[in-house]
């Protein structure tokens, strides 16, 4: 079952700016899907169209088989959305924001109150329920929007840059939460600037650039296209100059750390042997985490992989 199917989606704004050019996209039920792209690529426009906040120029969008044009009321019940910018009344109480949202989806108040307690507790906001939303910190406001998006228990959750401006600890706890609800069967679509986030959380990825989907595949497949791999080596003793080793691009991050890029086909043992020849002892090593970033930059700059 396709959770989301987008066909020939086009959007031209009144100013004449073409935001989307024939976008095709499919997201399977239960996927954790990343939509990546530089600023202004069209990610938020796509989300706006799916959630009925932006009028499309042409094309079809269906959610769990229901067209957003012909069966918009059914399609909307499947979607929960967490926008990039805060879009609640800052004068309302936290609990009212969540319970009212349930009301807009036709959920009776006693059930809405139960669910509000459940999601606000899960997201660490239950103690703040009687506070006015303007009193919350940035991270809390973002979690409030997640609770609000989940209160009608949608099958698909769309998050537009959910961890932008959120500290590392909170980002990690949000990731854990999102993973958990995805494992429970919820389809999640995420746009993010943190490519590490997409690599850590998502199974599939689409990259959009200037209104066109330029990649739509699994993260694993995309990463496998990299011909090289980058490792970080922590050294036992300080090193004044990085060594020169055939087939390796070595840069010194600091006197105790080296970044080494080499062909994927190369045996890692030979790298160690070469380092030993230069009397370099390695304490530990790790794969560089922002591999996706490398790919992303290459793809959006139209370089070959």
């Amino acid at each position, binding site marked *: 079952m396709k959770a989301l199917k987008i066909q020939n989606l086009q959007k031209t704004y009144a100013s004449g700016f073409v935001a989307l050019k024939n976008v095709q996209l499919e997201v399977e039920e239960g996927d954790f899907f990343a939509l990546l792209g530089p600023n202004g690529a069209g990610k938020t426009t796509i989300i706006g169209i799916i959630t*009925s906040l*932006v009028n499309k120029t042409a094309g079809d969008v269906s959610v769990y088989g229901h067209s957003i044009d012909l069966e918009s*009321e*059914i399609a909307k019940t499947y979607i929960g959305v967490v*926008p990039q910018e*805060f*879009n609640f009344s800052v004068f309302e109480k936290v609990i009212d924001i969540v319970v009212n949202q349930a009301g*807009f989806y*036709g959920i009776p108040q006693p059930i809405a109150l139960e669910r509000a307690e459940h999601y606000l507790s899960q997201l660490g906001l239950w103690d703040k329920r009687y506070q006015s939303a303007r009193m919350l910190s940035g991270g809390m406001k973002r979690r409030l929007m997640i609770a609000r998006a989940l209160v009608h228990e949608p099958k698909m959750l769309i998050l537009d840059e959910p961890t932008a401006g959120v500290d590392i600890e909170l980002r990690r706890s949000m990731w854990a939460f999102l993973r958990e609800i995805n494992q429970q069967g919820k389809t999640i679509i995420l746009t993010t600037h943190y490519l590490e986030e997409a690599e850590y959380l998502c199974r599939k990825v689409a990259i959009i650039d200037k209104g066109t989907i330029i990649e739509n595949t699994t993260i694993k497949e995309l990463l496998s296209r990299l011909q090289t791999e980058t490792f970080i080596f922590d050294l036992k003793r300080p090193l004044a100059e990085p060594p020169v080793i055939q087939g390796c691009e070595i840069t010194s991050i600091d006197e105790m750390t080296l970044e080494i890029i080499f062909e994927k086909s190369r045996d890692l043992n030979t790298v160690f042997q070469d380092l030993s020849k230069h009397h370099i002892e390695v304490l530990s090593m790790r794969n560089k985490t922002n591999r996706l970033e490398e790919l992303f930059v290459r793809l959006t700059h139209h370089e070959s992989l």
Partner: protein
Amino acid sequence: MTMRLKENWIGLETIVRKEISRFFRIWTQTLLPPVISMTLYFIIFGHLMGGRIGDLKGFRYIDYIVPGLIMMSIITSSYGNVVASFFGAKFQRNIEEMLVSPMPNYIILWGFVLGGVARGVTVGVLVTVVSLFFTKLQLHHVGVVMIVGLLTALLFSLAGFINAIFAKKFDDINIVPTFVLTPLTYLGGVFYSIDLLPNIWQNITYINPVFYMINAFRFGMLGRSDIGTHIALWVIFGCVITLYGISLWLLKKGVGIKS
């Protein structure tokens, strides 16, 4: 129309409850000012000056102007409620909470409009109660008073909604009340009968919809009007239908709220 009636009803109830609690929460800005200004009208125009003006159409001056003043407070309050609330929701973007939900457009419209009607009627009742300190309540035809009061509140709630749809900044929600609504109300016969006007001004008054509302309301209270009540009711009803159609069309097109 795929959503069930029950769910739509809960959605409508949620918006109306939210709207009513909003204007009660800020009652010093929403309920108190019209009561104070109408009290001043009653004191100055009715009590102090009214005695010198004498009778108008067989009624004491204060008795003659009370229906118009109640209507004036209903008009400004219902309009003000919807224009401020809907524009506020647009400005803070919390209107998106409703737009992403499965509620059909007509439920969103009715939710805001009924909130405006509730405030218009609340203020109307409060002003009527205050008027009892200055004059005796006269009710010639209760049904006409209620229908005209409700339809007028509905009409100006819809007008406020349309204003809010087009408003881009806070100034835009004050322009219409200041430059259109107030002149129409004052020139709609709150303080005088159009018989006192020269012919040309009488004819001009006939194109002012507020004139029909004030006179139909005055008929309901005093049994006296410058225009037939049936005609007035049709004019009000026609305006309500027209503005309702325009509002729904604007919502469907997403004017001012979708890009």
